[in-house]
């Protein structure tokens, strides 16, 4: 695939081909220009509205607080990354349970999905942080956040992985069995590698969602982006401004993560065609 990008039209091409290629490039450029102009206009309008609507606050200086707020990004990333890793592990086992013919495994996995998807994340966070101490289990705030996020997303991802495993054609399983592979190897060598490719976009999507849901952990006092934003605004009564700043930072983070997602998906799809 590399080196096939059309840089210019090589000599000797029929003029009509050169003209069509040039017109194609013009259209792409013009589309991109107008696409980004649309963004700039709408975002500019919203920012202007916020600035105009906000009364000037002489006691609040953003430059004093910005490093403090941005410092919360680290904890947000720690929470999200460790939780998505654990969630994927839970999801693989959850999915195998959901597809198991063993009633105990199947029942346990189905109950997990039902219970965790059936209750709000904020309730789960508070249950672990405030409810468990009642039975003598005290979990500190950061681990509470990671446990709650990974359990919650693990349940959603269980269903994603289950669907991904079921999306691997039955013929693949039959071919592996015919070759004499034991069931465990059929799963490990043939089904799971293909299922992972199928679910990668969904997992990346959930990871992006999770970076934002991690803001709920602010309720139990974890010093992540959202809590820092609230703390920064409180002394000078400028919470609106600081939360707007946090929103902008979340947005930039998700844009960066979306770019990673696009690259990852491209690499995954190339794997089938060429190494």
């Amino acid at each position: 695939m590399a080196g096939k990008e059309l840089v210019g039209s090589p000599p000797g091409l029929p003029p009509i081909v050169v003209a069509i290629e040039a017109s194609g490039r013009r259209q792409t450029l013009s589309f991109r220009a107008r696409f980004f102009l649309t963004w700039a206009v709408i975002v500019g309008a919203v920012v202007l509205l916020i600035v105009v609507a906000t009364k000037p606050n002489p006691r609040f200086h953003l430059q004093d607080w910005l490093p403090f707020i941005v410092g919360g990004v680290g904890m947000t990333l720690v929470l999200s990354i460790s939780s998505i890793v654990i969630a994927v592990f839970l999801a693989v086992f959850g999915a195998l349970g959901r597809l198991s013919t063993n009633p105990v495994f199947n029942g346990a996995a189905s109950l997990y999905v039902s219970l965790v998807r059936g209750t709000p994340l904020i309730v789960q966070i508070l249950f672990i942080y405030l409810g468990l101490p009642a039975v003598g289990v005290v979990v500190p705030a950061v681990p509470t956040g990671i446990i709650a996020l990974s359990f919650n997303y693990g349940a959603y991802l269980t269903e994603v992985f289950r669907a991904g495993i079921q999306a691997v054609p039955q013929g693949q399983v039959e071919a592996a069995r015919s070759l004499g592979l034991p069931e465990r190897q059929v799963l490990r060598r043939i089904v799971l590698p293909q299922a992972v490719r199928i679910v990668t976009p969904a997992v990346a999507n959930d990871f992006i969602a999770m970076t934002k849901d991690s803001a709920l952990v602010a309720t139990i006092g974890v010093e992540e982006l959202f809590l820092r934003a609230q703390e920064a605004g409180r002394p000078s009564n400028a919470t609106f401004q600081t939360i707007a700043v946090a929103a902008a930072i979340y947005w930039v983070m998700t844009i960066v993560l979306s770019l990673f997602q696009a690259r990852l998906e491209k690499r995954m799809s190339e794997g089938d065609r060429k190494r």
Partner: protein
Amino acid sequence: MSGDPYARPGALTPAGAEPIVRVSGLEKYYGRNHVLRGVNLDVYPGETICLIGRSGSGKSTLLRCINFLEEPSAGSIEVDGVLLAAAPTRKRGPDELEQCRQIRTRAQMVFQEFNLFPHLSVIDNLILAPVLVNGVARDQAIATAERFLDVVGLREKRDEFPNRLSGGQKQRVAIARALTMEPKVLLFDEPTSALDPTLVGEVLLVMEDLAHEGSTMIVVTHEMAFAREAADRVYFIDEGNFVEVGPPEQVIDAPRDERTQRFLARLKSRQNPEAVAEVAGIPVVPAPG
């Protein structure tokens, strides 16, 4: 109930040889649908057997029961001395599962849809089972795999991924993959039915070579030319059991049973549009050029 009345040792088999595949009293129900009705089939080393019949007649089910991709409802399968009886109502224990795996490695299946592993390169498709199942060293498995790629004429595609191959090439790789397990019998389940007509020939050529070199093969097919060329016996199956069995020149060219005659006539008309047009009374327009 047991013993295939039609089977006899093939030309390549010394007298008194034992069959390599023995299907006895095989029954298969899908729900309440009776698909196979007491099938007996013996195949001797070196023989090529073609199973023909309408779709839904049970020929693919029979093939899939032989390596236990389908659990038979009654009867037994024996492949190269490994005997396993149907167990439709219980879970098999570890010993039986091992026997089942033994049968599968000895009776390698080639599928209609190829079923190459898309996430593995051609060479990795070929060495997966020898390394994982037979414990062959990787280097040695690669050498063997390359030899079988030569057999199907695709050595130069060893590092390609399956999605970059044509249908005919995929099926030839699938045949090579089956051969790397050094099976006692090859099972072909309509190996050319999913192929573009222009690619059927290259696959049939490989299969004919295998048949002539003494491989034992059971082939479910609609390719009568192949059956005529390569088969020792042709089994016509209808409604779950054999109706007519014999050498190809008898079953295909001079069928005695009315059902066989009807099936072959219909197959001929499907593969030859001019015949259909003739039957339907439509004037045939000669192709331009």
